[in-house]
């Protein structure tokens, strides 16, 4: 043993730049397909029109969510919650079956990084060129390339921020304001904030978002089991690895130690060391290694989608596929199916009419002409449909209960109307104190549009 030596360890270190190598292949094509699908949906949806308004608009100002023919009010928040629950369950189901497929192919962080990387590649060149450029001392040439890249990034980011805000403010009028840059303060804030987030996350942070910030990545492992598909390096086949030049002595595995799989990895890890938490399941290393295998004339799949059990027990692909319908997956699917069913039927049965009954706080009950007892209510009628309706008000639950004056009320489209309602009973009806009654509304032009609320009628001593 040497004499003890002291050394300083830094708990925080500068990030090491990762230069993912460009790669073509089956999974790269699949990812680009997802980039196109998600981005077409994201950039185009706010421009769709429906019934003379924006088809998809989350109008926070008036607190109404327009989703094609559906208009959701704050009271319909449950649907939003259900939608989120369904999305979460879909995510869990996908993760249980195929690991981090969401991360590798559809997550906005991945998708925007892919787009930004593409821009980077177009301007700065291939991996080796990018590394060389970064090593160069500052020069006009370097400055030009770098500023061109950042300008392009910022353009994409700003357009993304603009589109994002277009989901909350009518995008057409927002477009008009672009010309004069006359956004309101909140529009400014969110366009710039979202643009900044896109630029920062996809341009600068990249894999660090997945490694240090993403909450989903933190608890994904709880959905994994031994039958979950993961990106694996078949070490039994690959090891011992040896460079191509040593080929021929026969005493080595399939891996030629070309390190291509490491160079393409967007999180900078070596998949040959086994499954690591940094791996986002992007399958780039599969594409890379398959190219190598093709060139060296070996079978593809040294790095492939497989499962932990398949590796240990040498399962065939069919056996792997059969194991995807295990209990865990069945339970996830059943729960998902139930929630989807519940949501769909709730949406189908939903009535575009809501009623709140507020008893007048100012008075208990009063005696009016002919000894009748009168109670006052304030109806809050919400016509959540996009047509005006006339509703008939009726009340029941107590003998001789009747509406004192006009019993029809017209409510304009998407209007909330307060309506004072007087109900009367003859002297001697009900008992002293509170009596349970109900108040209902029925659309005159559509009797199926009917809601009922319970209330109390107070008979004073």
């Amino acid at each position: 043993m040497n004499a003890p030596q002291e050394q300083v360890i830094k708990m925080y270190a500068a990030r090491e730049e990762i230069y993912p190598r460009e790669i073509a292949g089956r999974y790269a094509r699949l990812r680009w397909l997802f980039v196109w699908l998600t981005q077409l949906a994201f950039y185009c949806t706010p421009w769709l029109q429906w019934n003379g308004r924006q088809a998809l608009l989350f109008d926070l100002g008036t607190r109404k969510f327009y989703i094609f023919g559906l208009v959701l009010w704050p009271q319909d928040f449950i649907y939003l919650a259900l939608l989120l629950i369904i999305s979460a369950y879909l995510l869990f189901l996908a993760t249980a079956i195929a690991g981090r497929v969401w991360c590798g192919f559809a997550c906005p962080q991945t998708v925007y990084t892919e787009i930004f990387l593409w821009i980077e590649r177009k301007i700065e060149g291939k991996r080796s060129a990018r590394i060389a450029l970064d090593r160069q001392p500052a020069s006009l040439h370097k400055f030009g390339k770098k500023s061109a890249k950042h300008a392009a990034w910022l353009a994409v980011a700003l357009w993304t921020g603009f589109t994002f805000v277009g989901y909350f403010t009518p995008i057409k009028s927002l477009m008009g304001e672009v010309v004069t840059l006359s956004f309101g303060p909140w529009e400014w804030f969110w366009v710039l904030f979202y643009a900044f987030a896109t630029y920062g996350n996809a341009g600068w942070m990249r894999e660090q978002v997945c490694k240090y910030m993403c909450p989903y990545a933190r608890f994904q492992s709880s959905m994994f089991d031994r039958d979950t598909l993961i990106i694996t390096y078949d070490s039994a086949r690959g090891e011992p690895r040896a460079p191509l030049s040593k080929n021929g002595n026969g005493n080595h595995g399939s891996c030629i130690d070309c390190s291509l799989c490491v160079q393409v990895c967007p999180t900078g890890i070596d998949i040959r060391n086994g499954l690591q938490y940094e791996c986002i399941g992007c399958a780039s290393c599969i594409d890379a290694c398959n190219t190598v295998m093709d060139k060296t004339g070996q079978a593809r799949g040294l790095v492939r989608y497989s499962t932990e059990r398949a590796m240990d027990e040498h399962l065939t692909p069919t056996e792997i596929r059969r194991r995807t319908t295990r209990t865990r997956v069945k339970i996830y699917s059943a729960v998902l199916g139930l929630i989807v069913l519940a949501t769909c039927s709730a949406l189908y049965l939903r009535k575009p009419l809501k009623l709140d009954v507020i008893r007048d706080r100012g008075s208990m009950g009063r005696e009016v002409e002919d000894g009748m007892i009168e109670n006052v209510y304030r109806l809050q009628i919400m016509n959540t449909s996009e047509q005006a309706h006339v509703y008939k008000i009726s009340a029941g639950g107590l003998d001789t209960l009747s509406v004192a004056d006009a019993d029809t009320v017209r409510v304009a489209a998407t209007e909330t109307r307060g309506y004072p309602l007087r109900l009367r009973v003859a002297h001697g009806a009900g008992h002293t104190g509170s009596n349970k009654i109900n108040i209902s509304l029925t659309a005159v032009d559509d009797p199926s549009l009917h809601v009922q609320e319970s209330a109390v009628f107070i008979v004073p001593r």
Partner: protein
Amino acid sequence: MADFTNGFWDIYIAALTLLGIIGCGILLYSQSKVKVVKTDAGKIDTTGHVWDEDLTELNTPMPRWWMWLFYITIVFALAYLFLYPGLGSYAGKLGWKSSGQYQTELAKADAEYGPLFAKYQKQDLKTVAADPQAHAIGERLFLTYCAQCHGSDARGNKGFPNLTDKDWLFGGAPETIQETILHGRVGAMPPMGAAVGGDKEVEAVAHYVLSLSDSTHDPIKSVFGKEKFGACMACHGADAKGNQTLGAPNLTDKIWLFGGSVETIKETINKGRTTTMPAFADFLGEAKVHVLAAYVWSLSNNPAEVAAPAAVPADPPVAAEK
């Protein structure tokens, strides 16, 4: 409250807060680097932290921007405490107060709606009543400030008059209603039991009062009561139609403020009644009361019929106002 006025606790809290923040900074700095004894060949990079005999921790450093985020939060905390109240009784450089925030909001609302109210104030009450926007504003004001007593449908309660009929205690002209809201009213009916006589006489007067409006009554008692009604004429008048100057109600209609049963009327005569309508001039200001009065008047009148456009006074020139 002495605990909070003698200054010690202020300093205690401020010191605790500042020391806590500074402590975080020191901890962060001291923990960002550690000195360890180099192990064997020093090949495996560990943090040097060994426990349970041979468990060591691999050194996988966090990215440095994390550390900077921590430092930034410390700077933010200090800047916040400098600008805003948060350190004991120190008021903060910006002098922010929640009451100040309320005042700002109030000023903002006044600036926004002031011109609207000013516009209505220049208009005649009946014209304001015919304006649908003013009607909507008036209704909201009513629901906020008047509904507690008069009910949200303005039809009143026991002791609080119905505002939707044509029967008025102090008069129903729009200007009178405005006067009532601005300065309030006190309605007083003195106890009249002794002045009328005994219990028998009071009961008789009650029946007479009921007979005036053709309500159910005992004809014999009411004839006797008519003789005793003299004491009541001072206020309610010989014809019992009331007196709006005094706020004495008309007894010949079927509208009752406290109820029209014999028992209630006897109670009213024996014990008297006092009602108070509070004054809103200081609280709401004249401009709002203007809109409110127009709304209340419109409850028992049809403003569309009454308001003649020709009656709208032209806005006086600004110079002439001064």
